């Protein structure tokens, strides 16, 4: 290639990048969206693209670079035209059917995990839970979920990829994601018809609406359980140039998929709840932060927003109320569990890496762009919309004093009917297991990997903020389940998702992962187990944010409640090396073409 033609190619690429960047940014001024389009179009984000984005958005190159490297769905090395990501969750992961579906596809496509095939046609890898746990094994192909995978489908997928069949021509049924609502309670029984909550709210006025939310004792449904009314009030009272309402739809906790269903079938109630909040706190702008794994829901959500604008439920002078203006923008994440932490979510909304902020100050006073911001879970906003219409007493009548109302659970694992179950708070685990038909449970993971692992002696415990708190995930493990494998899976998850900000979590989650791998691999000693206990306690107590503070829970709970799961794998020796000595000689054996006895170590 001559220098001049290289130059002209370069200039074409630059022009192309610039036109794409300016078009996308004009449509939706968010760094993550610009990067998403570049990733889709070019299958990676090149250094030149990073520079052009930085220039166009007037950001430091290092910030764009940092963001690209932070999120799992952005790549600096090209992915395939078919980019296949298997979930690695214990419920919807590639091992969920008892066979390694990823290895199977890899074999058929001639590709190793975490790689792009030489011809650029296909890349394959794994990703954290994609929220399809009620559907068995699942994957994302170019961001679109395919659920209920089995060996026959894997063979067909390989054939479709090899034939370069466009995704539109793949079997439509594969992409069908059902809601699987098994038990409906307070919130799921009937959807609010668009605008009813808002009309009730306008009748009450902002102050009464807020006091109704306070009186309802509604607490945040993400798991932490802060009083929603108090959060709204603190935000309302906080001084700022603008107030913001943010919905946290970054449902990343493995085993959680209730927000997927709510976004799919109850979006009107959600937007109604956000609008109620905006009215109560005086916000003009709202954001729905949607996890990248749920991007397939974006067209649907946008159509609901568009319809609400047409109906006068969003926009200027909502329902004819002068001065009540509010609109909602959707920002889509790009694969980072940490962005479910509210201050990391705000950082991500601002086009940065999802690093949890130092708190205090809290988002209610210093949130999005440093302004007072309410961040609530999808389910919380929906509950608020119902409360405004039906009153706080209606809500308080269900559940307990401290845990008012209902909890929508995503239940998955080893039983026949995974799906959505809505219960009044205070329900026992026994009751839930009974309704699920889960007869031989040995353990239940309440609240996902970051929650609590309980054994059968504790199944009379109750769901609620006083006892077993959960953001919505319940994973049921039968007697046949290898619990150590589950705990190892969770340890890998946290090491992968740690943001890297603080030392205990950044290094500690990797040490825990490596230590557990050693034990699970049959090379752990009693000393290694004691080390796990000590290290897990340190990571839990000394980490910066909720991720690190909960990352060791499965290990600590496991050691306490299921010690035999670890102990039966221990070798009863004084010491076991920290690495595989013989494997460490493999490279030298290859280089020297030696395979004699002295070229090995036991």
């Amino acid at each position: 290639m001559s220098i001049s033609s290289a130059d002209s190619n370069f200039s074409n690429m630059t022009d192309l990048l610039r036109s794409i960047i300016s078009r996308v940014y004009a449509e939706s001024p968010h760094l993550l969206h610009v990067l998403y389009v570049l990733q889709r179009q070019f299958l990676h984000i090149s250094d030149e693209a990073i520079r052009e984005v930085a220039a166009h958005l007037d950001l430091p190159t290092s910030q764009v670079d940092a963001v690209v490297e932070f999120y799992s769905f952005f790549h600096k090395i090209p992915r395939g035209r078919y980019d296949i990501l298997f979930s690695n969750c214990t419920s919807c992961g590639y091992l969920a059917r008892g066979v390694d579906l990823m290895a199977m596809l890899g074999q058929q496509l001639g590709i190793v995990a975490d790689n792009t095939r030489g011809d650029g046609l296909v890349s394959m890898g794994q990703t954290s839970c994609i929220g399809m746990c009620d559907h068995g094994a699942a994957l994302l192909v170019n961001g679109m979920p395919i659920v209920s995978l089995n060996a026959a489908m894997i063979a067909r997928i390989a054939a479709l990829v090899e034939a370069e069949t466009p995704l539109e021509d793949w079997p439509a049924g594969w992409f069908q994601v059902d809601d699987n609502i098994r038990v409906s309670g307070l919130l799921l029984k009937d959807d609010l018809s668009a605008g009813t909550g808002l009309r009730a709210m306008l009748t009450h006025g902002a102050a009464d609406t807020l006091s109704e939310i306070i009186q309802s004792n509604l607490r945040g449904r993400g798991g932490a359980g802060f009083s929603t009314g108090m959060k709204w009030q603190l935000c309302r009272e906080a001084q700022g140039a603008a107030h913001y309402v943010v919905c946290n739809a970054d449902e990343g906790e493995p085993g959680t998929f209730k927000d997927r269903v709510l976004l799919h079938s109850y979006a009107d109630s959600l937007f109604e709840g956000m609008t109620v909040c905006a009215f109560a706190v005086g916000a003009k702008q709202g954001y729905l932060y949607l996890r990248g794994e749920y991007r397939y829901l974006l067209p649907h959500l946008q159509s609901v927003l568009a319809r609400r604008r047409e109906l006068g439920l969003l926009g200027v002078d909502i329902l004819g109320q002068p001065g009540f203006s509010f609109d909602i923008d959707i920002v889509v994440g790009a694969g980072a569990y940490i962005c479910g932490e509210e201050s990391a979510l705000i950082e991500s909304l601002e086009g940065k890496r999802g690093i949890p902020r130092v708190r205090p100050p809290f988002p209610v006073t210093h949130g999005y762009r440093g302004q007072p911001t309410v961040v609530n879970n999808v389910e919380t906003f929906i509950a608020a919309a119902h409360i405004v219409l039906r009153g706080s007493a209606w809500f308080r009548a269900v559940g307990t004093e401290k845990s008012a109302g209902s909890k929508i659970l995503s239940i998955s694992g080893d039983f026949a009917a995974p799906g959505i179950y809505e219960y009044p708070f205070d329900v026992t685990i026994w009751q839930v297991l009974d309704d699920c038909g889960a007869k031989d449970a040995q353990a239940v993971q309440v609240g996902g990997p970051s929650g609590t692992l309980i054994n059968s002696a504790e199944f009379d415990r109750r769901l609620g903020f006083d006892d077993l708190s959960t953001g919505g995930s319940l994973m049921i493990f039968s007697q046949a389940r290898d619990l150590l494998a589950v705990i190892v899976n969770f340890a890998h998850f946290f090491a992968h998702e740690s943001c890297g900000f603080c030392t205990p979590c950044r290094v500690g989650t990797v040490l825990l992962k490596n230590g557990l791998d050693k034990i699970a691999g049959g090379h752990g000693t009693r000393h290694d187990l004691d080390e796990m206990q000590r290290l897990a306690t340190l990571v839990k107590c000394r980490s910066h944010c909720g991720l690190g503070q909960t990352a060791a829970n499965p290990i600590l709970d496991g050691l306490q409640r299921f010690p035999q799961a670890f102990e039966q794998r221990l070798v009863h020796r004084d010491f076991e090396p920290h690495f595989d000595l013989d494997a460490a000689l493999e490279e030298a054996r290859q280089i020297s073409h030696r395979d004699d006895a002295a070229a090995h170590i036991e």
Partner: protein
Amino acid sequence: MSKIRIATTSLAGCFGCHMSFLDMDERLVVLLEHVEFNRSPFTDIKHCGPCDIGLIEGGVSNVENVHVLREFRDNCKILIAVGACAINGGVPAMRNHFNLRECLEEAYVNGVGVENPQIPNDVELPLLLDKVHPIHDVVRVDYYLPGCPPSADAFLKILGDLLAGKEPSLPHNLLHYD
């Protein structure tokens, strides 16, 4: 009272720790009233017999290092990692930045002035591990004596504590990594 038996060796190290040990000078004479040396470069005894204390200098770089280290662990009641290389791989571990092939090709194939370029593969040569490791990655280690090298005073302090039946500890002025 019988003498405390000590063995010493250098794995992937430079023998600098051994030289520093000898910096005890005339205090060695006093020490030798209480200790005797088994396998060590000081004695030229080739294999380690039952010992009270083993001092290991250097990291684990090849198969032979592993065998020697295991022999020491099997025979020494107390094993002490001596110096930066035994404790974290030290300077030899700087090769861990590169894969083994890159290292060997640089040394034996592409290096300046190499004649008859080839990577040695005689069976007499111990195979290299893909990385240089601290010794506590391979065997249980009882105590650590950091320094590059640890000073003669530091050796004397640790051995003195052990001879006195005390838990060894280094005062701040003897604790350094260089």
